[in-house]
């Protein structure tokens, strides 16, 4: 066969094609920016309104001026809240509850997820599904029976847990443990089987395999689960509203609402300030661990 030089007559059309492709891309980008801006406005206007309001005095808030502008900015709301013992108690209660709940959740759900993902035993698959189903039951359905249980528990043992902040340490894990276990099952399942087999042959026990191989390898998932548990316990409203009533036992979300609304008088400036201060810790945590959170959620999602 003789070789021939093929002249590519189609070649000059390529730049034209490229241009049309880039035009498609430009439009796609314009649309995505349009919707991203729309959603950003939607999400950011309420906090912006909160910031504006928190910088106003009560008089200015109730005055018929432009609600989107601060004419006499003041930090008095911040000073008042941060020097009020009550607010600091709420803050402390919230912090204690969240830290303990995160710890308890991780201590339960990480070993549970490891067992369900790796130590194949009778009924482990059913149990894993069951764990997830528990998460689907809403708290609005659970708070009454739970309340009755704690009353009965108090009657039986004489240990009164209701209206103590630490009762929340028992209740919150019913929300956080199933979800975190589920995230961690997905994450552990994505770790190649050979890795634990290699560890077992190297002489590691199940516990050593978990602590020295699985936890370090699944760290992004672990951080995602931690953030989730923290956010849930920090922002939980219904359970603390039901289970705690004394002002020294309240957590931040309930505390703000119950103490800053006196009858039909709303201390709007302080409410907004309190909400902003309360939103700060999760925000700071997200900012630092965002990359891990995204990596963790997606990795867990595809292999669940």
């Amino acid at each position: 066969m003789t070789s021939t030089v093929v002249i590519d007559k189609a070649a000059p059309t390529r730049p034209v094609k490229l241009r049309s492709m880039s035009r498609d891309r430009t439009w796609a980008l314009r649309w995505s920016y349009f919707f991203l801006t729309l959603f950003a406005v939607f999400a950011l206007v309420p906090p912006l309104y909160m910031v504006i309001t928190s910088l106003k005095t009560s008089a200015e808030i109730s005055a018929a001026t432009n609600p989107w502008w601060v004419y006499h900015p003041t930090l008095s709301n911040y000073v008042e809240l941060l020097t009020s013992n009550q607010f600091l108690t709420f803050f402390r209660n919230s912090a204690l509850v969240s830290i303990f709940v995160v710890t308890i959740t991780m201590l339960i759900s990480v070993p549970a997820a490891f067992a369900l993902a790796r130590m194949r035993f009778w009924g482990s698959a059913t149990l894993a599904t069951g764990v997830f189903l528990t998460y689907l039951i809403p708290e609005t359905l659970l708070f009454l029976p739970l309340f009755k249980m704690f009353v009965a528990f108090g009657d039986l043992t004489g240990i009164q847990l209701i209206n103590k902040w630490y009762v929340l340490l028992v209740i919150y894990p019913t929300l956080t443990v199933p979800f975190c276990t589920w995230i961690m099952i997905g994450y552990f399942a994505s770790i190649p089987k050979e890795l634990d087999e290699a560890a077992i042959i190297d002489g590691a026990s199940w516990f050593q395999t978990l602590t020295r191989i699985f936890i370090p390898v699944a760290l992004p998932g672990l951080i995602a689960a931690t953030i989730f548990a923290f956010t849930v316990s920090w922002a939980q409203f219904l359970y603390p509203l039901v289970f705690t009533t004394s002002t020294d036992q309240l957590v931040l979300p309930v505390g703000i609402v119950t103490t800053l609304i006196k009858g039909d008088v709303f201390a709007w400036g302080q409410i907004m300030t309190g909400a902003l201060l309360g939103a700060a810790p999760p925000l700071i945590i997200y900012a630092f661990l965002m990359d891990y959170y995204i990596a963790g959620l997606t990795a867990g999602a595809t292999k669940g």
Partner: protein
Amino acid sequence: MADVTLRKVVKKYDDVEAVRGIDLDIADHEFVVLVGPSGCGKSTTLRMIAGLEDITDGDIMIGGDVVNDVPPKDRDIAMVFQNYALYPHMTVAENMSFGLRLKRYPKAEIKTRIDEAARMLDIVELVDRKPKQLSGGQRQRVAMGRAIVRNPKVFLFDEPLSNLDAKLRVQMRIEIKKVHQKVRTTTVYVTHDQVEAMTLADRVVVMNHGRIEQIGTPNELYHNPATKFVASFIGSPAMNFIPCRLEESGGKLHVRITDRLAFPLPPARAARYQGVSRTDKLLLGLRPEHITEASPHPETGVENFDATLDVTEPMGMETLIYFALEGTQVCGRVNPNAGAQDGAPLRLAVDLNNMHLLNEVSGAVI
């Protein structure tokens, strides 16, 4: 160092028998390769030796002790996996020392062993890197290093080279052989690649459908296969199987292929096949290297014949030729200067001194 013995080992998954009663004796220092197509039970067998799979029936002995119920960590074995299974969050040195650290070896001892293994595998400059910074070949070296530092009784390799490209595979094959020559640890190696099996093994175990087809040295398997499966699995290009029957003509035993083509058998072969029924459907097994260009003065047992080539494949040092005999495609190897051309006739010679005769129904080599 230890010998490994399998006695009637069976593995069932629910109702499926993956391994059906395997008997195997592996001597101390021996390099044994389990080879077979996927699903033949070779990996399961290896994992049962490792203790990663329970055995349904039979006994496995390492160094004379039955280890059926001994957990993997107490069997004193090391395993190299196909996907390396390196711990991604540890450096090379940490990966290699993980087992030793769990057993609380003294630090100095660990360091000596890592240095020694790293030198042997030529990865000294990599010990502080993480696995993701290594190439495939380097990762496989680390995985081997992790096995070597443990100084176990038995090395188990589960298709360790399958993830590497062809060139690297050849190189690592030589590395593995070198390592075995140095450490002399009893090794069981699983692969589906017959070339790997032939080049590495002291003895090859050919498996099919959960059973052992044949055990032997690479040369035994190549020259004296016991079954059609082994004959076709070992060797590349594969052995040709041409339908034929035996017939007596002119007082000599012939192997008849077509109405017009029959070859007289050399005396040794004729004596061997004398008892075979003349009506049995048989297969003539011929390796490609025993079908060559015709020589002007053929030796005893070498017979010339004419064929029209379908396709030729020049390989440089030889040319592979393909032609049809009674509807069967036959492959031969000729000298590149023999004038083989696509679609052209060529006078060929067949060496019947190296022929095999198989029963077409049972697949057994006669």
